[in-house]
């Protein structure tokens, strides 16, 4: 099994708000991130796929295919967007780094051919990132 990671960046704005909370609860739980006008981040996305090396091509995955899927499914939808208002998942879910990573996993996993999605990592800042590994959990690698 070989693991391949491709990075991408996108910039987006968001805010955190739960309509079921009172204004005070929202302010307490989400702090500054509750500002309804939103604020932004430069997100870094790392997508790791795994698979056996194809004996003919020497590839785990066709990198062009992976890049195209990442652009189409993630960057076109999220880059330079207000996540709360423009990305369907976040009309009903709070666009935290956790939920962004899960949404990206769900967008990418069904589109990949040959290789299998292993990990989606989303950096909100260099000091804060979230990993998801689908339903399997992190495993060894």
């Amino acid at each position, binding site marked *: 099994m070989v693991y391949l990671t491709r990075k991408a960046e996108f910039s987006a704005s968001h805010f*955190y708000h739960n309509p079921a909370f009172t204004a005070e609860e929202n302010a307490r739980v989400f*702090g500054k991130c509750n500002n309804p006008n939103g604020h932004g981040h430069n997100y870094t996305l790392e997508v790791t796929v795994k698979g056996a090396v194809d004996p003919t091509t020497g590839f785990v995955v066709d990198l062009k295919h992976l890049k195209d899927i990442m652009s189409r499914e993630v960057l076109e939808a999220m880059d330079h967007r207000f996540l709360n208002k423009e990305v369907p998942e976040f009309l009903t879910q709070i666009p935290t780094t*956790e939920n962004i990573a*899960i949404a990206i996993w769900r967008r990418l996993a069904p589109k990949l051919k040959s290789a299998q999605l292993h990990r989606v990592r989303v950096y909100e800042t260099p000091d804060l990132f*979230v990993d998801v590994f689908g339903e399997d959990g992190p495993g060894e690698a």
Partner: protein
Amino acid sequence: MKAYLTRRYMFSASHRLHSERLTEEENRETYGKCNNPYGHGHNYIIEVTVGGAVDERTGMVCDLVELDECVRSHVLERYDHQNLNVLEEFAAEVPTTENLCISIYEIVKREFRGAHLQKVRIEETMMNSFEYTGENNR
């Protein structure tokens, strides 16, 4: 789907690697420059990874403010600008980054109740890093 959130922190501390179980010569041989009797220091980067299901009400694995406060008060306060060798946990253990990693894991495991602690990773320098996930190593 579970999510694993990692937060990075930094502190600066000094240490000297020297084992009571080795002779002077063996210490010099084993630890090289790190055996210098006056010690030396590092900017340690620590990464704390917690994991679990995402809370539907908050969209989060845990309250980040709580995690930051826990690490600040129990880890950074304890180690930042300290000489590791004089601390209680290193009275009988060499303050290698391996042992520091285990100590920090144990502190966060004990003090943080907000989510499952998955891993502690430390970068001693840009070249060396260490990870501990709580397997029985002591």
